[in-house]
Structure formats: C-alpha cells, structure tokens
C-alpha cells in the first residue's frame, strides 16, 4: 500500500485538524462562502430539480453503455489525430505517460489541476523518474510547494490562510514578503509564466469527453489549462473512463450546472473544447495530443449494481462544501485524492474496503450532500451500503460494537428482554454507571434515564383507567 494513502488514519488527522485553529477558521469561512454563492447561483433556474434529473439520466446512460461509448470516443479521437491509450491501473497509467514523455525526451512538464492525476500519484512518480513537474493552478502550486496533497476538489489550498501562503512564498521562493493575495498571485504568475514558455509537455485532466465527436472539455478559471494545452509540444490528458458523455449536445446542461455547483459562477472563465493537435498551417498548439483512459478499478465499480452510481460524479465539490464533517476534519483526513462525502464513497471502492473502512462511518448521514449533488449521486444511501459491507467483514469493525448490537438486538426484538434490560439500565443510571460509557461521557453529560419509562407509566395509567 502506498504510504501516501492513509484513509484509516481519519480519526487522528481529523483530531489534529480540529485542534488547528487556523485551519478551522479558513475552512469554515471558505465553506460558508461556497455554500452561499452556490445557493444563490442555482436560483437562476426555477427548474433546477428537473435539470438534475436530466443530468442524472444522461450520466446514467453513460454508465449503462460505457463499453460502446468508449469505443466510439476512441474512434473519433483517432480520426481527429488524437492518440488514445488505455490504462488498467495507476501503475500502467504512469508508465504510459513515462513512455510518451521519454520517447520525445521531454523533461520539463507543466501540469494543470486534475484529481485523476492525484489519484495515480503522478507527480511523485514523475519526480522520482527525473522529470521536472510543476503544478500551474495557483492553489495546486501552493500545496505542491508545501509538499502536501490538495485538500479540496476545486480549491486545493482552501485550508491555508494568506499568512501561511506568504511565508511559504517568502521562504521557498525567496520572494519579498507580502500578504496581499493580489501580489502573491502576481508573484506566482511571473514564475509560472516562465515555466510555461519552457515546458516540453503539458499534462491535464478532463472534465467531459464527448463520444460522438471526440472532443475533450476542460474547465478552469485561471487560464492555466489554456496555456498547458497550447504552449508545449505534447499534451497528455488523463481521463477517467466514466467522464464520457454520449453526445456533445448535452454539454451546455452540464456546463450550467457544474459552474454553479462548484463555485457559484454562472460559467467558468475558460471552457476548453479540444479535439485535434496542431495542423500544419496553424501557428501554435501541441503537435501531439494523447488521451489516457484510466480504469483503476472503475470497471469493478461499474459491475457493482448497488454502488455504481458513484461514478455519476462530475467532481464539482458541492457535496464537500455542505458537509459538516468535511468542514471540520479537513480534506487531508480523508487520506486520498477524493475527500468529503464523495471521497468517503469512492475511496473504499478504488483502493479496497479494508484500506478505507473508517471513511463510510465519517458521516452523520445528514443527507445534505445528496441534496446538492447536481447529478444526484445517492451519497447517503451509498454510505449505508458501504457500511453494511464493512460490517459483514468481521475483521473491520471493533468487536465491542458487534457485541453491542447483538445485545441491542436481543433487547429490542423481545419484550421480555427489553423489560429486563430496562430494569438494569434503571439501576445503572441510578448508580451513575452511565458515566462508564467513555466516548460519550468524556464530552457529554451521561444520559439519565427517567425514573419510570413511558412503557411503565402507560401500563399504570391504563390499569387505573380500567
């Protein structure tokens, strides 16, 4: 297991996050802001619910016909002069990229933000193979300098405040100290601009891939994807196989929904529609475009009828923004490239239940995530299903919990037991034994049982009435 994946340390990392006042402030502020702008933005449409239904059906269609759509997409790409590769898992994806780069002896690489490349730990791989990789999305650049993974799907550096960033730039880049976001951005722009101009290859993710035209669509605000995909000679796009849309004409719906859900904008600043490499008479652009279709357990997820709908996700991050757990635990606690409710659902599927068995429990099932999701991923239900699977695997849950639920089962499925245990509980609470239930009582007052349960009172009352 890669040491960089640590979902099972959720409690520990989350506790650290809770004690970190800076982080809590930054997160709370950012998440409230995101929620607010998102809620405002969806007001543009009176039929948001219908839009969600349509989006759900389109994405569902993709999952149901993925085999054919992938072939169709590949065919169209090849016709456009784009090279298509399939990668079965993280390792083969990395190797493919390595092969492409080394065949052109490309060394300097610019990357634009992509969760899929985080998923396969591409940066790590490339660096250890002697490549110079630089992230170009501002937030991602910041976390790269800090040697951290991103903490949010759409805002990788959301957990930091301007002071920390100022310190970082000052120390790592020897730039004059400033806390002004505008100045900081300018500093990053200057450095990264140089990187763009000298880069040999650009690596990006993909938001949507249209099967019927072979176009890939990449969404961004900063302009870095635009530059990544037009300045270097090689462009490599890493695309999860579920990103396919059957028809290009469905795009407007998704663009409307994605921008609003993700950042509350009407539309992202740049939406790149890319389909073919540089033509002989064109002035610039990559000479080669490679699309790498990554499986990495996705086809396994697809087979799983109960859980496949988590592949509907379009990575907007809205479910993170509303999640009270995410807001407190922070993205790093989830220990993998996906965080928040969607992380809790897909991480165990991607890297195996036993490697992430805590995540599905890190939710109060408040169902806020399911409500905001633009493509109606049934997140709460999926969490429940995962919990059931985990509970079935004996080694993954503490024995205490299992015994607890056995007792609870006896108690509540049989009247006689219930009465008996009621008495016991009465004693327990009388003698203050409820205090012994540590995880509850360390932080909360012990529960006090009423002197007479309702059941007992009801019996008495009806007896008297008679």
């Amino acid at each position, binding site marked *: 297991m890669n040491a960089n994946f640590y979902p099972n340390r959720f409690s520990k990392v989350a*506790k650290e996050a809770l004690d970190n006042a800076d982080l809590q402030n930054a997160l709370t502020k950012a998440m409230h802001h995101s929620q607010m702008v998102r809620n405002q933005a969806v007001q543009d449409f009176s039929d948001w619910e219908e839009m969600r239904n349509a989006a759900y059906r389109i994405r569902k269609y993709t999952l149901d016909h993925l085999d054919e759509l992938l072939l169709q997409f590949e065919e169209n790409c090849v016709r456009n002069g784009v090279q298509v590769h399939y990668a079965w898992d993280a390792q083969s994806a990395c190797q493919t990229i390595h092969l492409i780069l080394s065949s052109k002896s490309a060394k300097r690489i610019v990357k634009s933000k992509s969760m899929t490349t985080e998923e396969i730990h591409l940066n790590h791989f490339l660096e250890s193979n002697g490549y110079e990789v630089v992230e170009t999305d501002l937030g991602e650049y910041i976390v790269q300098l800090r040697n951290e993974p991103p903490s949010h799907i759409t805002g990788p550096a959301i957990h930091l405040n301007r002071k920390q960033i100022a310190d970082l730039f000052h120390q790592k880049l020897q730039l004059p100290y400033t806390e002004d976001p505008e100045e900081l951005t300018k500093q990053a722009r200057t450095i990264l601009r140089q990187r763009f101009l000298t880069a040999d290859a650009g690596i990006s993710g993909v938001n949507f891939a249209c099967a019927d035209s072979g176009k890939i669509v990449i969404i961004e605000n900063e302009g870095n994807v635009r530059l990544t995909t037009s300045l270097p000679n090689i462009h490599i796009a890493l695309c999860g196989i579920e990103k396919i849309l059957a028809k290009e004409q469905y795009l407007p719906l998704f663009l409307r929904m994605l921008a609003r859900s993700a950042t509350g904008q009407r539309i992202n600043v740049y939406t790149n529609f890319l389909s073919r490499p540089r033509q002989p008479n064109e002035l610039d652009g990559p000479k080669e475009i490679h699309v790498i279709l990554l499986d990495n357990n996705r086809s396994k997820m697809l087979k799983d009828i109960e859980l496949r709908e988590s592949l509907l996700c379009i990575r907007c991050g809205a479910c993170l923004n509303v999640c009270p*757990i995410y807001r407190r635990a922070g993205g790093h606690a989830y220990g993998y490239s996906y965080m928040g409710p969607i992380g809790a659902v897909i991480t165990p599927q991607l890297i195996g239940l036993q490697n992430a068995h805590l995540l599905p429990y*890190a939710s109060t099932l408040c169902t*806020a995530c399911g409500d905001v999701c633009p493509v109606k991923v049934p997140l709460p239900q999926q969490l429940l299903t995962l919990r059931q699977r985990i509970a079935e695997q004996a080694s993954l849950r503490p024995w205490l919990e299992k015994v607890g*639920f056995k007792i*609870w089962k006896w108690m509540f499925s049989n009247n006689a037991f*219930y009465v008996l245990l009621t008495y016991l*509980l009465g004693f327990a609470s009388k003698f203050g034994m409820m205090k012994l239930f540590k995880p509850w009582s360390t932080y*909360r007052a012990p529960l006090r049982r009423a002197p007479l349960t*309702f059941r007992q009172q009801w019996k008495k009352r009806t007896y008297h009435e008679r």
Partner: protein
Amino acid sequence: MDQFFPDSVWKAVQLLKQANCDVVFEEKALCCGQPAFNSGYRKDAYEVAKPLIDLLTMTNEPIVVLSGSCCSMIKIHYHELHLPPELEQQWVKWKNRVFEFCDFWVNVLQNPTLPNSFKSPLRVLFHRSCHALRELKIVSAAETLLQQIPNLELVYTNDFDACCGFGGTFAVKFPEISISMADSKLDYAMQHKVDGIASLDMSCLMHLQARSQKRFLPLKFWYAPELLIYQ
C-alpha cells in the same frame, strides 16, 4: 423516548387526546432498527424491526411516530432492509399511513386545537433536524405550526441546515467532530440568548442536551410539539 423522555410522549398523547383521537400504544413495537441499519448491520436491524413491521402490516389506523429520524427510517428506508417480497409489498401500502407527529397534526388533523399561549415571551432556537428537513420534508409544516403560537419567537442558525452532529454511532466513533458540531449549535444558541432549543428529532436533542449539561449551559430542550402545551 421510552427510556429518556417519557414526559414528551405524554404531552404528545395528551395533545392527540385533546384533538379527539383514540391513542393506542403498542407494547410490542420497540424500535425501528435505525441504529443498526445506519451502522451497516442490516440483518440485525431487520430482526429488530420485524415485530414492528408485522404489527404495522396488521393495523389499518394511521400511525404516529414521535421522532423525525425514526419516522423516515420507517417511511423511506425499510425497503433497503431486504424485506421479503410479500412484506415489501405490504410496506409500500402502509408506509403512507405513517406520520411524524407534526405532519399528522398539521396535514391530517388540520391543526385542531388553538395553540397555547405563553405568559412571557419565549425565544426558541429551532433546530431543523436533517431527517425531518430533507427526507420527510415536514419542517416547514412544523414551522407554520410553531409560528402560530403567540409569544413564541423562533430563531434559526445561520447555516440553518447544519447538522447537530449526533448521527447515531457517529457520536461515539468520532466524538471530537461530533462535539465540535454540537458546540457550533450551542454557541449560536447562547449568542442569541435563546431560552432553549426545539427540534423534531429526539435523538438530536438528546445529544445536544447531554453536551449542554456537560458545559452547564442554561438551555432547555423541547420536542417541538411539546411547545403546543408547554407552559
């Protein structure tokens, strides 16, 4: 409710009686099975829910449930317990007869009695509990109900959909996060100088109450319908 909040139950019974309903309490119905269901133990949950399911399949009367999350378990999630097909067919029929108290009061009984009036004004933080809000969608009904009560002022938290942090076993699995969530609620309540917190979900209240007692906060807690006859 049986163990910890018998008073609230009595108040609800009293209210229903005032509204000329015959109230029947079934001893055999113990628990809806939600705790185990939410933790992934669906089989255990089913076994616990079985007597209740059998019972409800046999009756023809409307069923009133006194807690949002239990109600949504019964109304919305039972089919996920992998019921045997006959039972599931029955469930589809009877689930529409299951109501949360507020739902029943407003939508079925059509607000029968005049609401109670308080002698002195009361400020109450209304906690929109998640299951009632998003799954049952009965919060607005409850709010209209409470707003009719003279002298009662409702306060909401700023991010009003925020969860209290109970989440069943979540509260003991990740106590720190759970507590931090409860504290946000309680702090908000204290800042806005409310007299107490009302909710449609007893479990949320149990959690919030336990935390507030630990912190020695002067807050009271009500199951929302209690306010109809609270003096």
